[in-house]
């Protein structure tokens, strides 16, 4: 970035009060093997009592580091090298361990990012809430339990008194996040730091939880520092935005102003790439956007998406001929599970699902987690066998394929999975990873494989010299490109993308989505795109099936579903897209 100075704007309201939190020229760095690496380069931030401010930025921008620095819980070798963190005039950066313990929980509450990993699995929920209450001296003796129940009920856990003794693994992600919010607010702190509190949750759950958090903090008069990578979400939830990039604040001011008129190039890219906003744009103000001033290259990619979506719509009109790549007929999958008392029970993960995917098009399978969409993917890939129903790939039933035929089916159909960190073998270099399917299917010799690898790397826009590197040296986006390249190695006709972009930052997400769109038009691929995020569906898919509890509740073209959702469930999913009800451009 050529412009180091934050683009500041006047805040809409001026309060006479002393600021609750004032961060002045904060610098934080980490000691690594390659020496001292700065993470924050002079952060200035002011938060008034009762105010909600959102920090937005991609991963690695320093937003979480800022949060951790405030409560002095920087991981590992991180430390504050310069600057002040004034909380009600007291510099938190210079407090000792004991004094800091009194600040944490009591004055500054913290709601962490991932509800799955932030509760200790070996202690009951009640134990973990009660210990927070005791540590902050809010209640003692028998009152602790009573107060804990009250705190949990406030946080939206209606049956707190009966579920207190249960353990975290018996709670759903949303419920755990409620517990964490309850703990964060237990001691009625003046400031609550919410570090991506819902990014691990489904959009519908996310909305419920954030609504609840907003009501609760408003009623208690708690100031909130809301940290997120989702610009739409930030704009919806906070009156003030702070945009961070590479350890600096590049822009700050009222949310609406920033969204409508981003000044800093990075913010402009962020606004252009945010899928939650982009999906609105295709219909409402696509025209207006094409006139706007964009900074290549990423914003140009954002435009590609829109173009791709439009040309796809046109193309679909022409190719109406019945040429179905995938036909699924009344597919069911029943799992045996253990019930309450340990007795065997049946659980229908997929229930009478039927759909057809035309060759060269994209079908999106949408639903919350637990709706059975990933199970459908597993059945299609024959990683598991269906209990009932038929799956036809290119007109052939795949149910009874054995050995050799199954191998040739897999050659035709390749998957890309969600987690770019977990789906690549850390001990294999990129070249070998991409070449592995070729080796398994005995395609070509050593030299031709090497040639194919560099061809594939080129196709997914990665430099050819990457083939000797290892996954840990790559970023999340690069890894997902590698996963796509691996899937394309055998020149498949069908690619099954199971939450393939869900774990990525918005900017990277936009890049991968446009890469997928390009590859589709180039190679005539058929995609089955599985996601919980309706926002990305609009830019990538032609047809949508909405799944709920194993059944397809709505299935139609993308435009119909978005403009005219029939099911209440679909409407809920649509409304839950962060930023969807944010009126873009007044």
């Amino acid at each position, binding site marked *: 970035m050529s412009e180091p100075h934050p683009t500041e704007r006047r805040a809409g309201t001026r309060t006479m009060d002393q600021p609750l939190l004032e961060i002045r020229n904060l610098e934080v760095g980490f000691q690594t093997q390659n020496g001292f690496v700065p993470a924050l380069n002079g952060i200035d931030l002011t938060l008034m009592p009762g105010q909600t401010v959102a920090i937005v930025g991609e991963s690695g921008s320093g937003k979480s580091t800022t949060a*951790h620095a405030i*409560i002095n*819980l920087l*991981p*590992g070798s991180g430390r504050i090298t310069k600057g002040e963190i004034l909380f009600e005039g007291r510099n938190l950066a210079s407090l000792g*361990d*004991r004094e800091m*313990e*009194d*600040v*944490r*929980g*009591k004055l500054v*509450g*913290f709601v*962490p*990012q*991932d509800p799955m*990993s*932030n*509760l*200790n*699995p*070996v*202690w*009951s929920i009640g134990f973990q809430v009660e*210990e*927070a209450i005791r*540590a*902050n001296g809010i209640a003692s003796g028998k009152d602790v339990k009573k107060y804990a129940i009250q705190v949990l009920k406030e946080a939206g856990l209606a049956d707190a008194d009966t579920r207190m003794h249960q*353990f975290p*693994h018996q709670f759903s992600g949303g419920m755990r996040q409620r517990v*964490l919010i309850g*703990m*964060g607010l*237990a*001691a009625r702190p003046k400031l609550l730091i919410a570090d991506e509190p819902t990014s691990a949750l489904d959009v519908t759950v996310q909305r419920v939880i954030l609504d609840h958090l907003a009501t609760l903090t408003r009623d208690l008069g708690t100031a909130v520092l809301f940290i997120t990578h989702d610009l739409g979400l930030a704009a919806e939830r906070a009156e003030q935005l702070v945009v961070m990039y590479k350890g600096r604040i590049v822009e700050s001011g009222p949310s609406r102003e920033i969204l409508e008129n981003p000044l800093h190039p990075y913010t402009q890219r962020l606004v252009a790439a945010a899928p939650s906003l982009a999906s609105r744009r295709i219909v409402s103000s696509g025209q207006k956007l094409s006139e706007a001033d964009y900074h290549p290259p990423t914003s140009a990619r954002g435009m590609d998406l829109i173009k791709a979506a439009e040309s796809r719509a046109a193309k679909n009109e022409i190719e109406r001929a019945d040429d179905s790549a995938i036909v699924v007929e009344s597919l069911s999958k029943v799992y045996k599970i*253990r019930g*309450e*008392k*340990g007795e065997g029970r049946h659980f229908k993960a997929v229930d009478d699902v039927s759909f057809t995917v035309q060759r060269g098009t994209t079908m999106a399978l949408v639903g919350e987690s637990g709706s059975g969409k990933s199970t459908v993917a597993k059945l299609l890939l024959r990683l598991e066998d269906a209990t009932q129903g038929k799956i036809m790939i290119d007109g052939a039933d795949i149910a009874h394929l054995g050995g050799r035929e199954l191998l040739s089916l897999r050659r035709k159909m390749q998957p890309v999975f969600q987690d770019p960190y977990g789906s690549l073998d850390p001990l294999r270099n990129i070249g070998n990873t991409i070449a592995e399917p070729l080796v398994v299917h005995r395609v070509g010799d050593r030299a031709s494989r090497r040639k194919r690898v560099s061809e594939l790397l080129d196709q997914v826009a990665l430099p050819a010299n990457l083939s000797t590197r290892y996954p840990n040296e790559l970023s999340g986006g690069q890894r997902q490109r590698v996963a796509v390249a691996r899937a394309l190695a055998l020149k498949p006709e069908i690619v099954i993308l199971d939450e393939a972009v869900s774990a990525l930052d918005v900017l990277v997400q936009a890049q991968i989505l446009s890469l997928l769109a390009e590859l589709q038009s180039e190679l005539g691929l058929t995609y089955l795109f599985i996601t919980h995020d309706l926002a990305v569906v609009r830019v990538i898919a032609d047809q949508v099936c909405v799944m709920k509890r194993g059944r397809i509740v709505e299935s139609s073209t993308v435009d119909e579903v978005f403009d005219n959702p029939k099911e209440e469930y679909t409407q809920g999913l649509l409304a839950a897209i962060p930023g969807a009800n944010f009126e873009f451009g007044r």
Partner: protein
Amino acid sequence: MTGYILRRVLQAIPVFLGTTFLIYFMVFAMPGDPILALFPGRSPDPAVVAQLRAQYHLDQPFIVQYFIYLGGILQGNFGLTFSGEAINDVLARTFPVTARLAGLALTFLAISGILVGLVSGLRKGKLFDATSLAVSLLLISLPIFVIAFVAQFVFGIQLGWARTTVGSGAPTADLILPAVVLASASFAQIMRLTRASVIETAGLDFVRTAYSKGLSRGRVIPVHILRNSLIPVVTYLGTDFGTLLVGATITEGIFNVPGVGNTLFQAIKRGEGPTVVSFVTVMVLLYLVVNLLVDLLYGLLDPRIRYVK
């Protein structure tokens, strides 16, 4: 819970049959005639030999001998040693001694290994950590009999703090030195495992969350870090019990402890089939029981795998 225990006990049956059969077979296959060995240097009366053979069922085919022996065990009768003493009596005499030795060793092992591992893990890369890693490497590298002889020489002879051999009746005070030696063999593994586990746990999200709630180090370290780190350590202690039994055989020999290991060692040297099989069988049973207990304890330590519901 009862269902789980029942299932585990049923699983133990084939293991029990398999081990006894293997051991019996191996002892059977040992060279030499145990009856003739009873009469060193002279040729015994063939009638007496035949009678002894019949008494110990040595005239029967191997598989019949095995089943006769198995039948005896199931009735709680392990048979006689060649000196005519009931093996049950020998077990009753030697077992309490070994149990005390192993109990002491396990206590030393758990306390020192976990404590040193915890401190090392919390002060990763500091002097204490480096020192304890070096010491544990030394202990891993040395065979247990070397440690035993060195301990005997330094503490028993040079410093005179302990007796080099255990007296009759094996007073507990005499067992301390052998127990420390026995514990030292597994100390390194326990300490390193605890250390690694503590380092991993301390970096987990819920630990940061615990601090963010306002908890002090004095609370977070035992309740959230150590408690979670113990899960793999306890499992290891269970499987390591076997190493402890092997170590006991050597250590008891060196310190002349009148325990199971020592008796077993003597019996192997004399080729006393029934005695060897009986002792090893009891050890196998003990090992199975200890590991069942560890698995149940594992369920207590980690609610996620609490059996049935």
